[in-house]
């Protein structure tokens, strides 16, 4: 009897597939049919991990945006809204930084969350500027990424815990 492995290598009765070590010698036609529709375990895992990471990146981006827009700010009044005080995430005035925070997939299991605005780094870490009078003045940090990242670090294991449970239930079927 001939059957097939997940790698679509056609197996003879006494043949062991080299890539999966999957022997076709003892499977029945019914099992072959089920196995044919079953996703490969490594595919399922990689897809789920990638999906988990994408969800994590999205959560991080949303957390950053929420911290900018919804958390109350206690600084001086700005041109549009109240400014952030040192240590608080920056307040949204015109929304450039808010809109520039994106998550992008740059490879397998690799997502990037951040902003390409020139002043994003200045806000994240503190900085020093020169006033028109020539005097240097210090601008305290308004961290927008690291508090969100800190929160996500704490909750990522839980998210992946859910992903693992999904993997297990899928493989059980």
């Amino acid at each position, binding site marked *: 009897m001939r059957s097939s492995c997940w790698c679509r290598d056609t197996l003879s009765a006494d043949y062991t597939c080299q890539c999966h070590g999957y022997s076709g010698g003892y499977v029945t036609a019914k099992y072959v049919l089920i196995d044919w529709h079953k996703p490969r375990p490594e595919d399922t895992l990689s897809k789920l991990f990638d999906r988990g990471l994408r969800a994590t990146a999205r959560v991080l981006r949303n957390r950053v945006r929420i911290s900018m827009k919804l958390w109350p700010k206690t600084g001086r009044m700005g041109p549009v809204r109240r400014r952030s005080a*040192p*240590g608080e995430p920056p307040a949204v005035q015109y929304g450039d930084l808010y809109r520039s925070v994106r998550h992008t997939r740059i490879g397998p299991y690799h997502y990037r969350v951040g902003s390409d605005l020139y002043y994003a*780094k200045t806000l994240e*870490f*503190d*900085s*020093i*500027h*020169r006033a028109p009078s020539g*005097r*240097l*003045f*210090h*601008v*305290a*940090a308004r*961290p927008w990424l*690291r*508090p969100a990242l*800190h*929160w996500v670090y*704490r909750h990522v294991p839980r998210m992946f815990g859910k992903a693992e449970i999904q993997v297990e239930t899928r493989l059980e079927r």
Partner: protein
Amino acid sequence: MNVAFYRAIKAQWDSSTGLVDGTNGLWIDEAPPGTDMPYVTVSLISDLPDYGMGNTTSPMENIMLQFSIWDDSTTGKPRRISSIYEYLKECFDFCSLNVTGYDHIKMERDLTQSFWLDDIQVQQYVVQYNVWVQKS
């Protein structure tokens, strides 16, 4: 918590003669205008409570803390900022902080980044620490 924590950081800072003698002080968030370099600023980035195992009475606090070393000296080898960084590491890496009302568990360095601000010719070292304290 913040006041006690900053006091503990300051007490630890004062214990290092290299830092006290080699810099113009430690400032919270930002230094006053006109402060001569080198100096160090400290900011609290994030503070997350951890209610692990249903522990709501004395949760563990995970604090992310940032030191910034500022220096405008561009001469000398090794650079002045590097020696301040070494003193900072020596002073705070796995140190035992005395935070009033809290048991100090651990303080470990997480990240170091160097920036060169070209327009004003100033070097900045960002040193980030993770601190775990628990209410006693």
